[in-house]
Each structure stands twice: as C-alpha cells, then as structure tokens.
C-alpha cells in the first residue's frame, strides 16, 4: 500500500498492511542526501529533492516540510545562524531592546517597543514563506498522490522564544503578561496565514512547541499563554485544511496532557521519556497517539536487534490506543546517525507492525 492508501484505509476502517511509521528526520535528511543545511532551508527545489530522496529510500508514512518555527521566526524578522557544520541556531533575539546582559539576568524593563511596528506574516507575500510555498508546489505535483504531506508551522510559544529570547520570555510571563499575549497574537495570525497556504496545496498541518514544555513553564502558564493560541490554530487548521493537526511535544508532558487532549489532533506524538502505556490508557480514547522510539540510545546508538525490539515494544503497547497509533521516534533522529538505522527501523515495522 502507498502511505496515502494506508491512511485512507485506517480512516475508513478497512484492512491495511501495517502500522504507519513516521521517523522524525530533521536535518538528518541533509546528511543523508549531501545537501547543505542552508540550501535545505532556502532552495525550494533542493528542499523538495531532499524530501523525495529520503521518502524514496525509506517509504515512511508522511512528509513534513517547513516553514516550521525557524521559517516563521525569520519571516517575522528574527535571525538564525546556519553554521557550515551542525544545526542552525537562533541569533540575538529581535525583541531585545530594554534588556541587558547576555543571560538577561538583570533585564527588568519590557522591551516590546518594536512589536508596535510589526505586522503578522502574509504567507502570500512574504519572501521567506514563498520559498516554502514553492517547495510545497513541487511536492504537491511529485508526491501528492502517494504520501500525505504536512506543512509544519512550528509552535507559537517557541517562535515567541526565538523572537524574544527564552529566558526573557519566561520572565515576561510574570512581569509583563500583556506584552506576551500581544506577541502571541501576532505569531498566531502569522501561523494562520501559513495554514491558509497549506490548504491551497491540499496539505495538512504539523506543529511542535518544544519551549511550551513543563520543564520550562508550568501547567498554569501553559493554560494562560499557550493553550488558547494552540487551540485556535488547531481549530483553524481543521476548518481550512479539513485535516487535523499532528502535534509533537517534547519532554515530560504529563502535567499538560489535560490541555493537549482537547485539541483537534491527527496525532499527539510524545517524547521517548514518556510512558507510552500510560499515554495509551489516559489519552488513547481521546486522540491518536504517536511514539516513541528513543532516537539517540536506540536509533543512533542501538544495534539492529535493539531497534527491532524497541519498535516491537512500542507497537505492542501502541496498538491498544483506541483512536489509532503511529510509530514514531520520540524526537528528531540526530544528523550523525548512520542512515542504515532508519532502514532497520522501517524493516522492523514491516516485520512487526502487521495489523491483526
């Protein structure tokens, strides 16, 4: 079955061959295809070629392209550094004025002046977003009938942290909550415009909001500053694209599950530190679950047998999820992973993921 046929069969309750599998490939795809990370983020043809090459090798069940958190941050005027080796990282935040000291330890004044001049991103006009739109166009033509494609719009709180700096943003949630809400509104409107773009190509939406994590903000802050915006985005995505959002959440998220399960989700994919059995029993009747093979200890460092065992264990647990299960990695596969490891992972799913 093609991934698209498999998805349709799952949805319509018809027989299908195996559990769907989506390893999170990140910049590992660049290492795989030899494309520079900068090109992967800026050249639409190379973006599409990379996606197609990786998909053709592994045959996993979904392609996810940008803009992602990074592209939307840049579309709003934020800056990233793309080193020749290694992953891109956020440059000095855009909304820095009023802050002093590199760690922001003595920053007191809220520095949101620049926000007054900022406009939400218009995905139809913004050059940075147009790059991703052109890649989407190529993929719609080349892959559209074979594999589901999603456009990642990242996560609103993580985009906010890129524009403001994580530590300052966290302080602002207490010190100037009104400004945080203004920033979140601007970002949410920008993401909605990107949802409109995805709808044009018939693609669904992926989201991930690593900074909105209980390791950094508690559930009360999540409820105030993240939940309303993510709710709005997931509702809007369903309305516009007719598809539910695939959401990945890093970290120990137990304390915010009560919010996560209220979203309109295609799947909630969980970190490998999460007890998958607990997710299946506590969330499985509300939303489909995806997870959660350890990308470092198992995929990057593990043997063929260890990979197969981990895949089998996730499938045995996950297949009890009432609303459905997708086998995924708990986070991005590190770029230095030997590409054959993903072959082994897919092989294990084909071997062990047959549907009874």
């Amino acid at each position, binding site marked *: 079955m093609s991934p698209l046929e498999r998805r349709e069969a799952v949805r319509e309750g018809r027989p299908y061959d195996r559990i769907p599998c989506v390893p999170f490939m990140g910049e590992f795809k660049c290492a795989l295809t030899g494309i520079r990370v900068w090109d992967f983020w800026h050249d639409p043809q190379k973006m599409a070629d990379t996606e197609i090459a990786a998909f053709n090798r592994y045959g996993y069940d979904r392609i996810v392209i940008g803009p992602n958190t990074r592209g939307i941050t840049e579309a709003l005027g934020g800056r990233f550094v793309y080193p020749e080796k290694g992953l891109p990282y956020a440059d000095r935040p855009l909304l820095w004025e009023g802050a002093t000291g590199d760690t922001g*330890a003595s920053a007191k004044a809220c520095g949101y002046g620049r926000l007054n001049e900022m406009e939400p991103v218009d995905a139809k006009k913004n050059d940075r977003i147009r790059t991703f739109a052109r890649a989407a166009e190529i993929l719609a033509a080349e892959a559209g009938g074979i594999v589901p494609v999603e456009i990642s719009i990242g996560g609103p709180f993580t985009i906010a942290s890129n524009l403001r700096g994580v530590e300052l943003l966290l302080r602002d949630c207490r010190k100037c909550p009104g400004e945080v809400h203004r920033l979140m509104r601007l970002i949410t409107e920008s993401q909605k415009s990107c949802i409109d773009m995805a709808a044009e190509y018939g693609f669904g939406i992926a989201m991930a909001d690593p900074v909105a994590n209980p390791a950094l903000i508690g559930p009360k802050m999540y409820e105030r500053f993240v939940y309303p915006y993510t709710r709005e985005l997931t509702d809007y995505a369903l309305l516009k694209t007719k598809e539910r959002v695939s959401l990945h959440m890093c970290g120990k998220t137990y304390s915010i599950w009560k919010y996560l399960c209220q979203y309109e989700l295609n799947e909630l994919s969980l970190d490998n530190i999460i007890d998958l059995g607990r997710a299946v029993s506590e969330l499985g009747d509300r939303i489909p679950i995806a997870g959660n093979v350890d990308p470092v200890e198992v995929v990057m460092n593990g043997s063929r047998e260890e990979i197969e065992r981990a895949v089998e264990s996730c499938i045995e647990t996950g297949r009890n999820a009432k609303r459905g299960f997708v086998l995924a990695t708990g986070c991005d596969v590190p770029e230095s992973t030997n590409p054959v490891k993903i072959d082994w992972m897919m092989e294990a799913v084909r071997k062990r993921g047959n549907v009874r």
Partner: protein
Amino acid sequence: MSSKEELLKRLSDGVVDMEEDDVAEAAKEYLEAGYPAFDGIMEGLVDGMNRASQLYEEEEYFVTDVLLCSDAMYVGLDILRPYLPEVSSDDKITGVIGVVEGDTHDIGKNLVRIMLETAGFHMIDLGRDVPLAKFVETAKEENADFVCMSTLMTTTMGGMETVIRLLEEEGLRDKVKVMIGGGPISQKYADKIGADGYSQNAVEAVKLAKRLLNVA
C-alpha cells in the same frame, strides 16, 4: 526598626516571592541596622533561594519562577556583597561551567550555575558554545575542582567526551571531577564517556557536586 530576624525573613520571602524591590529595600535596611552582610546572604537570600529550589523540586515552581527568584536574589547580593569581609576565593571550591561547543541552549546551565553559587561554590561561567579546550585551560588556570558541561543537542554531546580526554592528556583528570547534564544526556552516557556524574536537573546537580567533592 525591624529586628534582624524580621529582616532576614523579608530577604528570604522577597526571593521566594520574586519581589526584587522588597529584597532591595530589606537589604538596605538590614545594612543600615548594622547587621553582618554574611548572615543576610546566607540566612536571608540563600535561604530564600533554597526554599525556591525546594518548591521547584516539588513542581510547585517552574523555571519561570526560579529565574525570577534568582533575579531577586542577585539584586540582594549586589547590595550586601560589598560589605562582606574579604575572603580569598582559594577557600572556596571552584567549578568551571559551560555549554559545549556548537550549542547555544543555556537555560539549564544557568540554573545549575545559580544553584551551585547559592550552595557556596565559586563558579566560573564560560557561557555557551564554549570551545572544548577552553574548559581545560580554565580548569588549569583557576585550579578548579570540578567541571560542569551541558548540551541539549545530540550533535554536540560528543564534545563532552573530548573534554574528558583533554583533561587526561593534561594530567588533570585525577584532580578535576566532571559533571554533565542536558536533554539527551543520561547516566548511561556519563558512564560511557567516563564522567564522574550526571544529574537530571539543577537541584540534583548541587547534590551531585556535594557528593563528588565531599561537601556536607
């Protein structure tokens, strides 16, 4: 005029409640009343920060809160520190801390530094994206007792092992303890590269440092 106990409580509560202005006011009154700065720091500010880390451990407080508590503590420290009697930093246990080369995620490292400073260690913070040799050079120059490294990324975690090898080459490994932490790091990884310890969070890091360095 407030008693010493009342002022110490105001310092401590100001830190826990993240109220910088209250801390500043209490610290000034405390000095004006002629009480010793050392007690103000230890029984006021540090006491407050310890209470904040207790709340963090109990998941009552989150990083958002701990950052603001530490801001309040540092406001108080800036006021009280000039009145401390001169202490040679040789008397303190010295640690070198930083995020390894290639990574710029530094919240975790900052929290660990704050907690270790609160616990009385003399910390030299090399910041983020720190060249690996810099850890070793600094440990040598400063005669450090331990080195703390963190990273959030799998792509850069290998640098930690390099630092341990460099410490060995310099003949420093026996006198410098190595602690590591960060998202992809585990006890298993610490064992694999020969680090002395791993901790999952900042509170645990303090316990680990005390254990490794035999501090009560």
